[in-house]
């Protein structure tokens, strides 16, 4: 089985997000970049499947050279090889076309992604890729097991879950608790350096959206405190002042 895991290179979840160059560029100074948390779940499940079913795990990132440390980390966690498509990932449709093209070249059986990236928060790349390849896409996936060529999935639906079965190949957008995040060990870090990381140039495709500028939300005013002794006064404020009751 050939598994492809698509990973994003994103600021760590606690990072303070600011912009430079007249609000046209993310201020990367002081920011630590990580594998997207949902992508990390996808990767962890891929490694588990490799251990239980035997598989090759390839990680793919659409990004410029600065994402390579993040890709190496995925190799250290246990992926066998990596592909970086050398272009800035600025539009979902553009990124999805790059990923779909890579999948066409290699015929992967299972394509795992995160349910959403934590920078663009779009949650659409898996659906677009599924449609481009005309194969099913399922998200958000909380359990994923393979029996022969059948994938057994539990998907989150509002207020519960749904169980489904589908034949490979598919694209799945993963989330907790599909697997526990894996931390690279020393041996993984050592071997990661020599694992193949192939850099390929993007296929030509027009961007259908363009980022004009970035902005930070307005600062929040200060909190209005209600004395614990008269806690019930809060209800009056919510009713009469905030008008939410």
């Amino acid at each position, binding site marked *: 089985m050939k598994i492809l895991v698509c990973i994003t290179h994103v600021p760590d979840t606690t990072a303070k997000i600011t912009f430079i160059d007249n609000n046209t560029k993310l201020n990367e100074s002081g920011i630590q970049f990580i594998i997207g948390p949902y992508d990390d779940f996808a990767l962890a499940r891929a490694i588990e499947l490799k251990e239980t079913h035997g598989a090759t795990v390839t990680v793919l990132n659409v990004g410029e050279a600065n994402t390579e440390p993040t890709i190496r980390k995925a190799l250290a966690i246990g992926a066998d090889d990596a592909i970086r498509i050398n272009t800035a990932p600025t539009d979902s449709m553009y990124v999805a076309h790059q990923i779909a093209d890579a999948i066409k070249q290699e015929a992967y059986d299972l394509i795992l992604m995160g349910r959403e990236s934590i920078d663009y928060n*779009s949650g*659409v790349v898996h*659906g677009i890729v599924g*449609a481009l390849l005309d194969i*099913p896409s399922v*998200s958000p996936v909380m359990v994923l097991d393979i029996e022969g060529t059948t994938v057994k999935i539990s998907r989150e639906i509002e207020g519960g879950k749904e169980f489904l079965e589908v034949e490979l190949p598919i694209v799945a957008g993963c989330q907790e608790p599909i697997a526990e995040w894996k931390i690279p060990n020393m041996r993984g870090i050592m071997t990661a350096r020599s694992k193949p990381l192939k850099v390929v140039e993007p296929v030509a495709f027009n961007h259908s959206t363009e980022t004009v500028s970035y902005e930070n939300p307005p600062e929040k005013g200060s909190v209005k*405190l209600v*004395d*614990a002794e008269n806690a019930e006064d*809060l209800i009056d404020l919510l009713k009469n002042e905030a008008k939410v009751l």
Partner: protein
Amino acid sequence: MSILVFIEGSEGVLKKSSKEAISYAAQAGSILNDQEIVAVVLGSYDESILSNLGSNGATKVINVEGDVFAENQIGVFSDSIQGIMTDNDIKLLVMIKSSFSDNIGGRIAGKTGASVVSSVISLPDVSNGFKVNKSIFTGKAATTVSVNGDIKVLIVNKNTVELQESGDIAPVEKIQVSSDIEVKIKITGKEKAEGDILLEDADIVVSGGRGLKGPENWGIIEDLAKALGAATGCSKPVSDVGWRPHHEHVGQTGVKVSPNLYIAVGISGAIQHLAGVNSSKVLVAINNDPEAPFFKAADYGIVGDAFEVLPKLTEKIKSL
């Protein structure tokens, strides 16, 4: 030309938050000079439920019935809506963001080549091209995006516009989908939390964190939620240790909620938790530590012991 709006529902009930998409489309329609707002509903619903979408701003409702729509299937729904778009030469599709609609928007964009923008937080600005604002970095920032494709799909965050309720009725047209719908996924079962108010769709959410000390103490959360007609949520560590079910966990890696009122009880206010609640209208923090970070994000707060404060709030609500 008209704006098509995808409305989600299940088991005979349409999602309230999803109806905001119609109000969004109606307001976008006046900006775009496009007054025909067509709501599309797949599956079987009462005629009155469908025609009442006129109240939210629909000028027409298209309803497609069929057994294939009994479950919310990603492939089936996206293929059907795409068929309707092609048949009617639709250039703009609007829906409210959810864990289901993301999939639909993505697949339709893939099939039609549409420009897709998800997490939209503004009406279109057409003064120079077609621009919308989009939330990024889980609410920590926003960006202005120019949407250039001939066909556009906008997946709009909840609370972007006020849900309009005019009382109008819209005509309902029953149609067949022309394209062949291929069912590739077999649904083998479902597990639903009985009788609960849907967290993603709730107007009010009461959430508990590690400060509640154990699952046996959840009664005070449930009592307050019940009195308020609210859904209950929790922080990640609470669902990690199994005090509450996984699907109640709110935040960056859990459910993102945008209620009118979010009450956080014994939750410290870690940035990953706030990421899931920062588009709520009003945030309330109840915590015995005055230094808890949640107080920096909250609109209202009570510094005090949850076990003393909550019963007082519940009493007061009940007395109203």
